[in-house]
């Protein structure tokens, strides 16, 4: 009992430390994720792209669908930002060795996951409200459920953080970062509903549609579309939630295993 309380106390202290360090960059991150990203993506995908690419009757609907899919990209950028210091630490200073003397290695990794998820969640929160404020006529979301959206954002934050933590533990060094983005993240984004919803992928090619179901980012984009647009064209929230929780558990398990192998010097 005393040991559990002690572990919890150390866990909380490590979490506080990470939050304190992140807070030092709050102004830079706040400007980038609170204004620049929402403005830029809303301008590009909500305002300009639908008017140039699609017929006038489809502009409003397709603009909102395309823009909401950008959440996957923002979630990946944020979780990458929060988890990549682990890789630099593992190949550099190894501050994590000191942390592992205080807590079990798996709990240290879990603390990083909780921090990365909270960090991503906090900076994802302004994305849609800011876009709605900047482009109220182009972003048509009369049936939005903000509570459902917050739930999807939280799950997306945990899932992408677990995924990037897993990638961090599996990568051998920073030279593999560009490969991670080009060969994994970009593929997952493009075929994960970032620009087109799953039913369009399925209509184009049913095989591609079934393969896309293995892509965890499909559930982020579909879940966000369902929460904001509430249409039967997208997956129901419970399917998206279940899939994201499953992927989070799977990625965390793989990350713990890879992390243990990496830390175990015996």
């Amino acid at each position, binding site marked *: 009992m005393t040991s559990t309380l002690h572990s919890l106390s150390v866990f909380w202290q490590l979490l506080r430390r990470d939050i304190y360090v992140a807070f030092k960059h709050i102004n*830079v991150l706040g400007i*980038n994720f609170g204004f620049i990203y929402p403005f830029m993506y809303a301008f590009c995908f909500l305002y300009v792209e639908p008017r140039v690419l699609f017929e006038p009757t489809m502009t409003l609907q397709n603009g909102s669908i395309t823009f909401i899919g950008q959440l996957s990209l923002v979630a990946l950028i944020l979780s990458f930002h929060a988890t990549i210091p682990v890789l630099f630490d593992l190949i550099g200073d190894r501050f994590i060795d000191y942390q592992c003397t205080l807590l079990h290695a798996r709990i240290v990794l879990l603390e990083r996951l909780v921090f990365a998820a909270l960090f991503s969640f906090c900076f994802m929160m302004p994305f849609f409200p800011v876009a709605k404020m900047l482009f109220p006529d182009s972003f048509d979301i009369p049936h939005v459920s903000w509570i459902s959206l917050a739930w999807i954002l939280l799950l997306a934050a945990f899932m992408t953080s677990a995924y990037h933590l897993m990638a961090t533990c599996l990568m051998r060094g920073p030279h593999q970062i560009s490969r991670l983005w080009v060969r994994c993240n970009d593929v997952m984004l493009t075929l994960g509903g970032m620009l087109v919803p799953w039913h369009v992928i399925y209509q184009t090619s049913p095989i591609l549609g079934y393969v896309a179901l293995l892509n965890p980012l499909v559930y982020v984009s579909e879940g966000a579309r369902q929460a904001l647009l509430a249409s039967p064209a997208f997956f129901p929230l419970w399917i998206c939630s279940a899939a994201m929780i499953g992927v989070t558990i799977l990625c965390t398990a793989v990350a713990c295993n890879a992390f243990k192998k990496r830390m175990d010097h015996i």
Partner: protein
Amino acid sequence: MKLSENARIFCALIQRDMKVFGSKFKDAFIDGMCVVMLQVIMCGYLLPQMGMKPHLIAPLYISTFVLMLFTIGFSQSLRMVFDIKFNRYIDYLLTLPLPKTWLFSTYVFSFMLETLLTTLPLITIGILVLHKHFPFDQIQWFSFFAFYVLALLFMSVFVLMLALSFSYQWYMDNIWPRILSPLLCIGAIFFTWHGINLFSPRVAQLTLLNPFTYIAEGIRMGLLGGTEYLPFTYCVPAVMLALVVVILLLARGIKQRLDPV
């Protein structure tokens, strides 16, 4: 004599870079293939299924050129940033008996060569897959190739300037949200300039401030011809003007970050 010595060291450095590139070519080709195939699927099949006008498939696919320039350029720039921060191989290069202009020209030339060798075959494959949408009789081969070399020159100087103008921390935190993403999103890269001009001339004028608008439109003009795109008479001077500005910024960055006496 001096010129020939400089040229000899320049060639040796390029040869070294090409040898390194040769060992990484397979990876670069696979990475590029991923970008091209995703663009083919997105522009050729998924977006038309969603209701995109079919005549926009070819001009939209051509944005792959710019996307690949960004992808390869960013990794090149990041390599330079890591070198300045950690390895400092640049210090050894600065001690070589080679004028600084020649030295930084090797970076630019290597980048141009690597990007040309990676992008051209890949994008040709994509064009062949989407051949129905490309009017092959309208391609202006010489103009396209000459303009593409100019675009590569601009991009290589631009990424070098980015690597040498900012601190490591600023670069890592802000280079995508504050520089690269706005250049990609607020320009005529994912859509044609005439398409923007039809619904908002003001936004179209805004995108003219972005040099990548001219690069994308120039490549479209070279490969697709017609009157739908900005002509070379606008694109070439605009890219050259942007190149001069970027060279001046690069010179300032070199002085600030490396201070070669």
